[in-house]
């Protein structure tokens, strides 16, 4: 602290040493590409080649022309369902890890048990669900064996259900880690005080633990929402024509339709939403964060 008042010039030179390399990096590999994206979104295509221009027509088309807006909304809905599902499934495990694991060794082992599925290859996890839910899949084989059904059902795969289930599966470990980090910070004394003052387990849970865990829940849910909304593997592998998501649309615009300006316009809209999301997350996390 004293250095700041005594030698501001010295301090400023050090700051520049640290700041300039990453600043340059992010300018070259993020700011400039995003500006290019914006530039492309203002142009148009003629005979599959890009024509520069200055029109907002493409950006307006994102909101006015089908299927862009509805696919965006559907992706957001799938993302929200995923965030909700992963939080609901993740909370009990995080709770056990924070409140019902006695030794440090046990804690470490359970922690590893959570990390392994999180780190297992993404494609592998999506593909595993395909083999389970498919017409010749394990779920159908099991139901046939139990004589619950007489012919394989097709309703498990290639729809929004299979996409959401797979995404929930993929993001649950992440939700666990995020919620656990917050639960671990709740002091034991607060839990004890609550029960000493006569609160039931349920009351302690709903009025102390859950409110205090909200920052972790929100942080995890927002990142899950963002990643799931932008996913393109699960819909491509497990979703039918009904479960196309926004990233698949962007890829089709590039690879099939060669409509770069339209793809860029969707990108700009998504970047806008993403920036807003970071700000909201920041605000909510700070508002709900209690100081111990």
């Amino acid at each position, binding site marked *: 602290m004293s250095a700041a008042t005594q030698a501001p010039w010295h301090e400023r030179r050090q700051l520049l040493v640290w700041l300039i390399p990453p600043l340059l990096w992010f300018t070259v590999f993020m700011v400039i590409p995003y500006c290019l994206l914006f530039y492309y979104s203002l142009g148009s295509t003629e005979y599959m080649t890009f024509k520069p221009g200055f029109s907002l027509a493409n950006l307006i088309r994102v909101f006015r022309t089908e299927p862009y807006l509805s696919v965006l909304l559907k992706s957001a809905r799938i993302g929200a369902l995923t965030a909700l599902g992963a939080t609901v499934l993740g909370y009990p495990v995080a709770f056990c890890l924070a409140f019902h694991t006695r030794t440090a060794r046990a804690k470490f082992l359970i922690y590893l048990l959570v990390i392994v599925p999180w780190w297992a*290859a993404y*494609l592998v996890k999506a*593909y595993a669900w395909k083999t389970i839910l498919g017409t010749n899949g394990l779920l159908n084989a099991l139901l046939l064996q139990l004589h619950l059904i007489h012919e394989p059902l097709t309703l498990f795969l290639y729809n929004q259900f299979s996409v959401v289930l797979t995404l929930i599966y993929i993001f649950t470990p992440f939700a666990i880690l995020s919620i656990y980090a917050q639960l671990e910070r709740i002091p034991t004394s607060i839990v004890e005080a609550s029960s000493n003052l006569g609160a039931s*387990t349920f009351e302690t849970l709903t009025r102390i633990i859950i409110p205090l865990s909200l920052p972790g829940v929100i942080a995890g849910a927002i990142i899950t929402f*963002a990643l799931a909304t932008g996913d*393109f593997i699960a819909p491509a592998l497990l979703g039918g024509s009904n479960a196309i998501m926004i990233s698949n649309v962007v890829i089709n615009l590039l690879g099939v339709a060669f409509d770069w300006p339209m793809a860029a316009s969707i990108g700009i809209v998504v970047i806008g939403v993403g920036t807003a999301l970071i700000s909201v997350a920041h605000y909510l996390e700070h508002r709900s964060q209690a100081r111990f």
Partner: protein
Amino acid sequence: MRELGSRRKAWTLGWTVLAFLYAPLIVMAVFSFNDSEFTSLPFRGFTLRWYTMLLDDDRLLQSVWNSVYVALGVVALSTLFGLPAAIALDRYEFPGKAWFARIVLLPIVLPGVITGVALLLFYMALHLKLSLYTIMLGQGTGLMCVTITEVAARLQRMKKSTEEAARTLGATEWEVLIKVTLPGVMPALFGAMLIAFSISFDEIAVTYLLTGRQNTLPMTLWSILRRQATPEVNAVSTLVIVASILLICVGTWLSRRGSGEPVEAPG
């Protein structure tokens, strides 16, 4: 007492969720040994042929090395640029800091496809040929935020007083960095390297758009999966899972050893 409510009820729920997380992985591993062309019941006997088939698949093996190469490059880039960014963000005040932090964090919430499209336009403008290096630059930009958030969180918990004490006792800025700051952030930096490596090894959205003629492992798996799904994929997947378990164990062991060391130890 920290335990709240019924231990048995809590763990019944907990283990149910963990079973849900492991069931597909176990299914995968079991069917990688099934002597049948299809991943379905009944189980037709034990075989290792899907694993031996892997060893003959040059394209697949080459893509594994490509992935390792890309991931190492990404780790190097995100450390080289992420560490200074974290130090600047935590230890200094400067105008536009909030915006810098926001831009740095943006790739976390942006779909990889959007990052990929933006970079693809950039490469096209520069007439850069797509290769493993273009993938590396793209993933590196996306994953730098991991290093920055991990290291900045660690710096926040580290007291500035140790660094100031070193300065007062006559250490140069360089000595403070090498002997105090770096050893202190080492566990976080190491953890970030592992996370960056594993995400890069698994990354598909950015890679999908920026890949040239050489493919990474997820891209090769993706093309196999889209054509036909042989149990060979189960075998690769099982190996990838086993490899990541080993990596996690080694990583956590190393970082635990690292974090146990007091700050003043090196010298």
